[in-house]
């Protein structure tokens, strides 16, 4: 049998990397098991002429389309929003837009302020030092001083405005609406061994330059140098427990597909809002027949995605197209509740610079604005390089019927039951999306855009996987306590997006990592009585 480790972390993505790095200073024996491998930037799409075509195959954001051995299938047939993720060292930070807003202080008190959902058991101030530490570690760029966002101190200047940003800014100014350069994790200058952005284009599926921050090139090198052990191509099947109901270790399949048992004194789950409930439900036993840490019955419940309402159009002037990072500006004009709008809560907006030629052709043909035949060439030249986009990230409120369960049939390559998603968009979200689309149309039309198209929701837009093992002080209404420890198993922690109580209306990775650092800090403060 293998020697036990002090801390075993499952998942080497956004939160797993952060918690590993933070705990490394304890000098405990820390092991991380990751089902994917190390990435090779020389193989990233932007290194090849066929960079756009790869998005439809091996570099699709959907694990079901990619179908790499490192991926697991997800049955999301019963959801209008499909799950997207990436499985590797770095997790989904390898494949994300690098848009870097954080939750607002008001997002932690939704029940108190607006009478819906629940308040978090912690507040924004508890996370502030960890937001700042995380921004330094991930390396953010932006412009401090946004009057409608929490104050941030990005260590690098904001991305250039570019052609697209200027058109959007002028339109927003005409309408008198808020906009601001986005905080991003794109390096705008050389930073901690990362080269500055050279505008390779749509950098969502990994950055060959290394300018976009992903935890394989930020946290992990530091964590490994500090002594953390990272084993790749190791897929955990279940967490085991002992006669006292404590986590005793994990059963996993190694790189050769051989079943292994790794004992551990502490287990930390960092598998995202779909992978984490899947693992807990797959860890059912006679002592925990409904799944591990599931006495509340809430493991897998309250899945929140952020329905995206996207609208885009085409202006006469050239836009940045694929010659820049995709996101450049945000707006918080409609972030907070306004009862006159007919819905509670709100949405953040991220503006999109444009698209590459293949994507433009494929999507425009599907939308019916790019014809077949003789007129194809004229119309394509009108569209290509002229796109501007508006995406509203609508706050998704928790609803128990939106859930992750185990599929009774579907299994991954190791025979482990796959997750099944059941999800519907609420009436509140639908009203919010309609409101956002109307505002987006005003912005685009003010900019002179025509041929306006809508994706609402973005069907392949399930990037944000939240809420399925929520945090709280009441063990009957939550899965983990206010510092990330499961109520039921006192040496089992969760640090990923599944512990979100509410979703806010922003991309969540900054907040996920701040939470992971906060939980690591709480653990370090309580090492002497961690299991009390």
């Amino acid at each position, binding site marked *: 049998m293998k020697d036990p480790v002090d801390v075993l972390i499952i998942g080497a993505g956004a939160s797993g990397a952060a918690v590993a790095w933070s705990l490394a200073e304890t000098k405990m024996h820390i092991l991380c098991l990751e089902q994917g491998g190390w990435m090779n930037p020389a193989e990233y799409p932007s290194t090849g002429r066929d960079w756009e075509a790869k998005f439809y195959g091996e570099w699709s954001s959907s694990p079901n389309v990619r179908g790499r051995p490192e991926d697991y299938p997800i049955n999301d047939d019963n959801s209008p929003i499909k799950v997207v993720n990436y499985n590797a060292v770095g997790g989904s930070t390898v494949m994300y837009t690098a848009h870097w807003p954080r939750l607002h202080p008001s997002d932690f008190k939704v029940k108190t302020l607006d009478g819906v959902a629940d308040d978090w058991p912690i507040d924004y101030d508890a996370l502030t030092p960890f937001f700042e530490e995380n921004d330094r570690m991930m390396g953010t760029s932006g412009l401090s001083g946004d009057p409608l966002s929490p104050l941030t101190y990005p260590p690098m200047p904001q991305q250039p405005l570019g052609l697209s940003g200027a058109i959007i800014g002028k339109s927003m100014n005409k309408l008198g609406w808020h906009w*601001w350069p986005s905080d991003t994790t794109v390096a705008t200058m050389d930073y901690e061994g990362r080269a500055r952005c050279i505008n*390779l284009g749509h950098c969502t599926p990994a950055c060959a330059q290394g300018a976009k921050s992903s935890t394989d090139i930020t946290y992990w090198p530091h964590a490994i140098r500090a002594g953390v052990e990272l084993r790749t191509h190791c897929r955990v099947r279940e967490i085991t427990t002992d006669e006292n109901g404590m986590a005793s270790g994990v059963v996993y399949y190694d790189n050769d597909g051989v079943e292994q048992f790794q004992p551990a004194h502490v287990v930390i789950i960092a598998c995202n809002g779909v992978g984490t409930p899947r693992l807990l439900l797959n860890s059912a036993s006679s002592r925990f027949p409904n799944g591990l840490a599931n006495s509340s019955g809430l493991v897998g419940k309250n899945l929140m995605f952020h329905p995206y309402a996207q609208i885009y159009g085409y202006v006469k002037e050239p836009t940045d197209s694929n010659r820049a990072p995709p996101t450049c500006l945000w707006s918080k004009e409609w972030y*907070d509740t306004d009862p006159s709008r007919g819905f509670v809560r709100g949405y953040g907006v991220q503006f999109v610079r444009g698209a590459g030629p293949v994507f433009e052709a*494929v999507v425009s043909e599907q939308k019916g604005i790019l014809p077949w035949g003789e007129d194809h060439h004229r119309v394509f030249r009108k569209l290509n390089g002229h796109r501007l986009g508006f995406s509203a990230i609508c706050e998704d409120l928790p609803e128990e019927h939106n859930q992750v369960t185990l599929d009774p049939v579907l299994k991954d390559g190791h025979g482990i039951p796959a997750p099944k998603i059941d999800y519907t968009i609420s009436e509140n979200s639908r009203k919010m999306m309609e409101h956002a689309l109307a505002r987006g149309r005003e912005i685009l039309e003010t900019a002179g855009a025509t041929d306006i198209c809508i994706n609402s929701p973005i069907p392949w837009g399930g990037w944000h996987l939240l809420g399925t093992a929520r945090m709280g002080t009441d063990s009957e209404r939550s899965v983990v306590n206010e510092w990330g420890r499961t109520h039921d198993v006192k040496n089992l922690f969760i640090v990923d997006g599944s512990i979100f109580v509410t979703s806010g209306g922003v991309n969540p990775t900054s907040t996920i990592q701040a939470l992971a650092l906060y939980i690591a800090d709480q653990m370090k403060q309580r090492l002497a009585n961690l299991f009390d």
Partner: protein
Amino acid sequence: MSADTQLTRAQRDELRTVAAMIVPASGEYNVPGADDPAIQADMLATLGRDTKLVAAALDHLARLAGRPLGELDAPRRDAVAQEFRKHGGAAAATLVRVVLQCYYRDDRVLGSLGLELRAPFPKGHVLEDGDWSLLDPVKARGGTLRRAP
């Protein structure tokens, strides 16, 4: 196995015909059609995981046409194409996407669009910093972050 042998001769003929219907050659823009031999060869060489759906789409087209698509007169061919695109589902979408993704990476086509014939990395692109005075009205207007109690 190459897609040359995964698609039948009849399927390859249909692929060429429908590709030309989607993107015909243009003297005005000095570009080939998507039935150009080099572009067709690219499609066949890179079909990969799309082969099954593309083959299904081509068979669907053949059934709708009742004979080789190229033998139909123009109005009938257009009617078949419309029916195919409207009801062809994922297979039809995949076929069209394969045609377009190969067409819009052809050197002659990209050249006609004024795009450089290279991978994005390592040269990248230049992005102008822009006029940040545009942000002045937003700064002047200010605002208040909603506070939590």
